[in-house]
């Protein structure tokens, strides 16, 4: 249990970062065939997600060295956060699965009911997870670490957005 919760949160963070990578690229390239462009954008998001998760993880590990008992407190926060994040993540992945595999009307339904609204509420879901995690935290340090980790995740999409431009055939190409 001790290892499962942080690993699960890390996996969620990296998956979310990959989606962010896709989102910042979507609507920036008007070609018809652009699977490579999207794959590269997802890899970019995933890379930054792994980096951010590693930095946050290293920070937490360092803090735990100096504050015995902090790790146990953080597990309480992690568990509380997962009550918010897991249903959101599960529904999003189901929506993605339906969009990728089903026929036109079901794909549209997945978009309208899940993918669109869930993109809109993502920052609020992460903020809610931070609030719930901090609320349940047995100590102030654990609460602050929870909020800082969520803030890092929220900062990912704006970071990925930096330097992204529409790929205008007349002007040049956007990254990635």
């Amino acid at each position, binding site marked *: 249990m001790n290892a499962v919760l942080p690993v699960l949160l890390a996996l969620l963070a990296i998956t979310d970062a990959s989606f962010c990578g896709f989102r910042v690229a*979507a*609507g*920036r*390239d*008007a*070609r*018809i*065939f652009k699977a490579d462009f999207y794959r590269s954008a997802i890899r970019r998001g995933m890379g930054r997600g792994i980096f951010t998760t590693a930095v946050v993880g290293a920070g937490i590990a360092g803090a735990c060295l100096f504050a015995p008992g902090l790790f146990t407190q953080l597990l309480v926060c992690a568990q509380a956060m997962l009550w918010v994040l897991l249903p959101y993540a599960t529904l999003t992945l189901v929506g993605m699965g339906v969009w990728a595999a089903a026929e*036109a*009307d079901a*794909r*549209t*339904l997945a*978009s*309208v*009911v899940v*993918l*669109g*609204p869930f*993109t*809109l509420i993502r920052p609020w879901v992460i903020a809610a997870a931070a609030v719930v995690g901090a609320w349940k935290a047995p100590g102030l340090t654990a609460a602050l670490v929870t909020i800082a980790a969520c803030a890092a995740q929220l900062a990912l999409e704006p970071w990925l957005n930096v330097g992204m431009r*529409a*790929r*205008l*055939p*007349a002007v040049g190409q956007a990254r990635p």
Partner: protein
Amino acid sequence: MPSDLLEISDLIVDYDVATLQPRPVSRSAVVARLEANGQRSAARLVRRIPASNDTLDAEACNLALLRSHIELQRLSEEFLQADRLRCVLLPLLQALRDAGVKPPLRIVDVGCGLGYVVRSLAAHGRLGRDVEIIGCDMNVTLIENARRLAEEESLSCELKVANAFQLEQPGHVFISTGVLHHFRGDDLNAFFAGQRQGHAFVHYDIQHSVLSPWGSWMFHQARMREPLARHDGVVSARRVHSTQTLLSAARTETGFTCASLDGARNLLGAVLRPMTATVGTRAELWEPLLRHLGPLRARLGPAR
């Protein structure tokens, strides 16, 4: 009754319909018009567009439109717009062939913008070797970029700065996506009247429903970045015509047999099909079209 809110994209560029030459647009006039219509946030957006001597910078306007169309394409892709259109075009083209219409069969996209549907049909359409796909728009910047995109991917389609109803070789089938709501009254009638020269039309637009403005707001907030696109996206959904208005204008002006496709009969219908089509053919083509439509036939409304 559709809303009379104004779309910024309709106001910041202007063309002489006869010569297709762009005309200067006064920023203060656009701002005053939006303010008089109670659209203060739209007026603020227009105030931010660069201008010299009160004339809006055409390049800045076209660039904003270009970025908006690129973002809009992402929504069309998500909602499978080109696929939906292809599903109607395939039986329609078959009906034209059965009726002995001489090839090449010309599909003309009216107000194609960046030509997403035209390029997508050319890329995936499998419409047949006897079919020509032509996209027309009056915006030079959009068409130039559309051409570059088509060239880049070696797509077999034509993109023209032209009035779709005044082509040297008139179209057999006129199509459009998200264009109908731009027209009101006589302009809507003129839009359909222009299609008498053809044999059929398929015009997709946003579903007229109480949910549409909310859905449009949500998707434009979630998916679009360009303020102009966000604004116009929501206004578009509020401007859409009811099925009855479209069918009435289409029947009166063309004399074709017309029906709506995917018109929502309830709220679930509006969720499943955010776009609906107005379909019309010359009377003699209607029965052959129904024969070829297959399961799609059940999604047609009553024809007249």
